[in-house]
Every structure is written in structure tokens, then in C-alpha cells.
């Protein structure tokens, strides 16, 4: 069973979303040892012995990103935003001051059908500012 369904249906944490099941949209993104992965396409066994963070979790970068997301009012329907935040957290874990190009490269695996991309870009920059304050 992929991690996604174990997290949602067995563990009962529903913040991690199903969007495509084939690693195309990023809605199911989670952090494993701080790095973003697509939980829809990884077996449960992959997570054994590793630190898994879902959107229900709390990390420094996630908290700054949340604050920025809230300030800029990023979400529309909100459904993809769990994955967007997780992908952004993974980006900041490895690149504390990403450029627009870095953001595009890191975030283009995450689809937002409502079209919040310009705000996501802005909010990631904002989170960096909040962190450096």
C-alpha cells in the first residue's frame, strides 16, 4: 500500500491529499527526513525507520510558510495547499533564500487548479523574510 493511503485511511490523518495517484500533481507531498516525496507512489515500507512529517506537523520552516501563506491569503479552494506548503518547506530546508527560478524549479511539480501560483511564489519569498527578521 502506498504511504498516502496508509496515512489517510489507516492512520487517519487526512491533511495529505489524493490528487492523481501517479506523482503528477504533488497534492500528496510529505516530508521524509526533511525532503519532499510523493506519498502516493511510495510503499509504506519506504517510511520504516524514517522521520515522516505531514501537513499536520510542525517545523520551523512550515511555521514561517504558514504565516506567509496566511498574510498573503494564498489559498483558494485550499485542497492542493498541503502539498504546496510541504514542497515549499522542503525547498527552504535546502535553499534558505531561493530565487524565482529556484521556486519555479522546486514547485512546478505541484498543480494548483485554482491558479494560486503567483501568490505561492510571493509567499515563499515572504516566509524567507519572516525567518530572517
Amino acid at each position, binding site marked *: *500500500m*502506498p504511504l498516502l*493511503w*496508509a496515512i*489517510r*485511511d*489507516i492512520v*487517519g*490523518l*487526512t*491533511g*495529505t*491529499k*489524493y*490528487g*492523481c*495517484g*501517479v506523482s*503528477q*500533481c504533488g*497534492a500528496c507531498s510529505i516530508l521524509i527526513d526533511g525532503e519532499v516525496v510523493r506519498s502516493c507512489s511510495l510503499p509504506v515500507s519506504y517510511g520504516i525507520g524514517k522521520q515522516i512529517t*505531514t*501537513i*499536520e506537523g510542525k517545523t520551523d520552516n512550515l511555521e514561517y*510558510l*504558514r504565516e506567509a*501563506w*496566511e498574510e498573503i*491569503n494564498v*489559498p*483558494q*479552494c*485550499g*485542497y*492542493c*495547499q*498541503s502539498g504546496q*506548503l510541504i514542497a515549499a518547506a522542503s525547498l527552504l530546508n535546502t535553499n534558505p533564500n531561493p530565487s524565482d527560478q529556484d*521556486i*519555479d*524549479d522546486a*514547485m*512546478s*511539480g*505541484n*498543480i*494548483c*487548479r*485554482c*491558479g*494560486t*501560483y*503567483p*501568490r*505561492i*511564489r510571493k509567499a515563499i519569498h515572504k516566509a524567507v523574510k519572516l525567518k530572517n527578521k
Partner: protein
Amino acid sequence: MESIQNMSRRNFVKVFGLASGGLIIGCQFSSEKDIVRIDDGTTFAPNLFVQLKKDGKLILVCSRSEMGQGIRTSLTSAIADEMEADWNYVSVEQATGDKKFGNQNTDGSRSVRTILEPMRKMGATAKALLIAAAAKKWQVAETDCKAEMHYVINKNNDKKIFFGDLVEDAMKIDVPTNISLKDKKDFNYIGKTLGSVDIKDFTHGSATYGLDARLPNMKFAVIARCPSTFGTVKSFDKTATLKIAGVENVIELERVKKPFGMLGGVAVIASNTWSAIQGRNNLDIHWDKGSNGQYDSKKYMQKITNRVHNNAKVAPPTKGNVNAAFSKASQIVEATYQLPHLAHAPMETPNALAWVHDGKCEVWAPLQDPQTARADAAAYLGIEMKDVTINVTFLGGGFGRKSKPDFVIEAIALSKKINAPVQVVWTREDDIQHSYYHTTNAQYLKASLDKSGDVTGWLHRTAFPSINSTFMPGANYAAGWEIGQGMNNNPFDIPNTRYENAKAEPFVRIGWLRSVCAIFHSFGINSFIDELADKAKKDPLQFKLNLIGKDRIREEESPHPLNTKRLKNVLNIAAKNAKWGRELPEGHGLGIAFYYSFYSYVATVVEVSVINDKLKLHHIWTVLDCGMVLNKDNVLNQMEGASVFGSSIALYGKITAKDGAIEQSNFHDYKMTRMNEIPPIDVTLVESDEAPTGVGEPGVPPVAPAIANAIFNATGKRYRSLPLSDHGLV
């Protein structure tokens, strides 16, 4: 100033005893301006929208579904504004699907347009009650009191009473008969930016969408449906399915022959979603593909294209004589445009959790139209509506798909059969391959230009399977309202016009998708007038302004008549923002398009480059005049989103069918634009005191033709069909 007269106490105030610890206010209103679909009446039952607690907590009910348009924040903020409530005390409760809340159908970009005023009255009446209660307590006239930030203030001595402390007194007050609404200058929340009330749930993964609904002992179901629309099961073998761990049952479902009836198929029921998906993969099913099994969308496009190249059924009004105009023309221009089917592809796929037990039914689902779901559920089960409860969850996108509750009927049918709560989950493949598709379209346009380059005659033929066919099998021509989405009522001042509609029979379920027929008619019209401007050797912007002509208001279109001045205004602002006419870098082009839809005016300019045959979007400027704005940031967000949605249509949107089956299946072959493809988007809102009009949809129609026009400007190449990926540009 508006006033509410003759409201009886019985209809207005309901007191729910001390247990609820507060004052609950309801209101009866009628929505004469609402467009009512199917069974929705025009008279509204008493409603409950305002609940004030003794501790000051204010619970406001949102009757419309939240799918990203921010409606839970905006509608309730209008109540709070008129009530002079402190927003920090407000929490929002989602209404269940029930006629007592008035029309809840959340589509057609109509929520604010139709119920802003009733919501304001709800707040204004609550305020009047609280003021009356305070005045009585102080033994002063009501006119000596005012409300401000959750307090009633005695204007004579500045004494104040907290709203919560007035609950008990307010319960004893008769409803005031003369309520006034605030002036624009006094608004606290209306017209301003108010962050979403749900933002923290969105950023913490705690918002409950349909797919997140959970009940003890619930089962998960995935359904195999026939690849061709309305095909049926001939036989199936479930042996391999039952070997999958977690699979508990395999059940055949019959199609329900109603507009939103389920398709039928073979359902696999399991203890978790993954087992159900695996179980379905292992089913061996033989299908009878039925009468739609031959559908070939490529051949079909040829067929409807041939039809628009010949005379077709006239769609009035006809003006003057186009043939005479054509015979006198200095130049004749003609062009054919072709657009494919689309699927809504909301990020959250269709789904529903249902529990049918003891003659009752309860549903949790992402629904744009919960009342239709309720009525259909009651009819399917043969029980009364009062025994059906429809809980509306957050919608992970809707775009029209979640107006059609076929997935609710599936969940109800299965729950009834296995006597347990069942969540039906549509996989992405199900969503792409069994949708209510945006229709496919062919258009032929022909126009005559005189010596000075003015348009003297305009013939527009269109053919597309109608949404009507979903409601009335055999409806092979467009509905009046579909043609009326900007085709036979375009805003141009042309002396000779004729509109025609050719036959187009459906081979899939046809449904409405964000901005509906405006998508293709905007593409045809905006592309064609760009072609005309080129043939007339005129600047596209000036040519368009000239074609719209002098200022005029089409009064016959009450209550929101087209005002050409407002249309030209958005065009001019968009052009100015984009610095229209400026020198552009090598390979770059600017394109402009506009559209009037859902009573709102939008113009969009896009800057593109085409270098080595590859398209890149560089900037989008879009301008909206939707009359009075309720929540500014929500509107900006919708317009930004519409630009992205429109870009997806332009670049990638295409659903095709072969042998009756949809050829696309997931986001790898039904692509969406991604962050790296989306340029900066500038949105300008026109300041206006006009009545509020649509926001969710009107931003979409101008985007694709603005891109196509920009490509022409950059390269001299005209693309008359979408998506642009078909032309190798992306």
C-alpha cells in the same frame, strides 16, 4: 436607502430556548433576481443566518458552497458589516442542503450578485433589534443609539452595552418594520479585503473536504464504469478482485436514467481506498459499449465543421441583410475555429460519503448544488426529503463538476446495499474519463469590410452538443441561453448580422464548466476580430473599440443591461496597463481580448514570446468591472486564478474520444499549466457603485484568445484551434 417592510415576527425571529444560550435570527426574503434552475422556487422559506451568543460570539451561516471563491468569508462579512459586528467574534457555519436557506446552487457566478442584498438585510435587521433592546433599557429613543464594533452606544452620554449582553432583551423585542442599509462610506468590511475565515484550516490540513469525511466502520468504494458513455455491463468476473486483501464486496450498479443519475458499473467495496482501487484493477468486465461506443471526436469535429460551413438554423435576432452586405464588400474575411472537449479536473476528485439507515440518509460530500443532491437522493431511495441530510464539506475545486451529484447517488446506492457507511472515491482516471464534459465546438465566422475598414456584415455560425442534451435526450441544437453567452448578443455595432446554429448530437454527458459557452465563443469572436483588424490594417485595440461603437446601454437586458462604455473602459485600462503599442523585444507579441459574461466586463492583454517555435507567457494584465466589490482580495484572487485556468485551456486543454472511450486519463496527458509557465499577473478592478455582478467565471473567456492574438502579433501565425500544444508551441 432601502427598507424592509411588513416583516412579521413569526417569520423573522425565532428563539431557541436557553439551551442554545443565544439569539437566533432568521429572515424571509424573496429572490426575484435569482436565476432559478429546475425545482428551485422563487419564494424563500424562513431562514436562519444569524446566531448571537451571550458571550458575544456570532455564528453566521453561509448558504453557498466554498470551492475557493471565498464565499464563506465574503457573504458573512456583509451580514457582519450591516450588523456593526466585530469580525473577531464571527465564526461561520456551513448550511446543510435545505430550501429554507434559499437557493444554494453555487454556480453561474451568481452568489454575490443575487444574495448580497438579502445578507445585508439580515445583518441590518439584527442590528436594529439590538439597538431597540438597548434603547428600551436606557429609556431613550432608538435614534439616540448607534451600533459600533459589537456594542450599542448611547449617543447622548457615550454609554455602551456589549452585543452579548443584549441577547436576552433583544429576544423580547418586536422586529422593527423599517430597516435601513448602510451607505457605502460607512462600510467596515464590504469592499475591503478580509482574509479567509478558513485560512488556518487550509494551512494546517484541517479543512474537511469530501474525501476527508470519516465515520466509524465506513467502507471505501471504487467503481468501474463503462469506457463509453451509458454502456452497460455484459458480464464480469470478480475472482481476482476478492483475493485482494481488504476487499470485502463486489456489487453491480444499474445506471439511473436521470440528468445526474449514476452511470452504473461494478463497485468494489473495501476497508480502505487502496484496496478498492486494486480490487477494481483486477476485475474482468465485458462491456456492452452501447450507442455511444463509436464516438470518435476527431471525426466528429470534421462533421460539425462541415455543418458550420453550410447554412444552419437561424438564431435570432437577425439584423439587416448580411448577404447584401457581403456582395457590396470591399473585403470578405472568413475563418473557422475549433475547440475540443474539456474536463473540469478539480484537484479533489468527485466523491461522497453516504450512510443509509433506518429509513434515513445522511451524506457528506463536496457539492455545488446540495438541494439537487437532496432531492435526487430522496427520489432514489423513495423517502421524503426531510429524511435526507446533505452536509456540504469544503470543495477541493468545483468548476461546475460538483453541481452534478451523480457520485452521491452511487454512494447512497452502495450504502443501502451493504448497510454501512460508504465513501465512493473517484480516482483521477475516473474524473477525466467519466465527466460531464465541457462541449466541443466548431464556429464559422464571415464578415465584410468596407473601403474604410469598417465591418458592414457579420455572419456567425456555431455548432456544439448542448448542455440541454443532458436534461433532454435528443436535444441536438443549442439552448437559447448557450447562444446568448455572447454569440447572438455580441456587443458590436454592426448594421447587418446573422447568427446560425448547426445540429450537434452528443456522444458523452455534456455539462457546464467555468464560463461555459463563453470559452469558445470568446475564442472565436476575439480571434476573428483580430483577424479583421489585420485585414483592415488597423490597430487591434482601436479596431475593437470602434466595433463596439458609441456608448449605449441595452436596456432590454434588465436587471444588468450591457453598457458598452464599461466594456470600452476595461479595454482601455488593460491596454494602458500593458503599455499597448510599445516597442517589443524580438520574438515578443501583445494580444488583447475582452468579453462580457455573467454581467461583468473583462479585458485581458497577454505578452508572449515565440522563439524557436516555443511559446512563453511573459505577462498577463487583466481588468474587471463587476460593479460593487464585496471582498477585494477574493476578487483579485479569482481573476488571477481565471488567468491560470484560461492559460490551461489555451495551452493544454483537450479531451478526445476514440471508440467511445476518452483517450486521456490523468495529469500527464490532460495537462494543466504549472508554476514555471505562469508569468506575473496584474489585476485591476474598476471602482464602481453599480450592482455586483459575476466574478468566478468572467475572467476565463478572454485569456485564450488574448494568447492566440499575441502569438499572431509576435509571429504572424494565426492559430484557429486549441490547445496550442497541438501546434507544437508548448
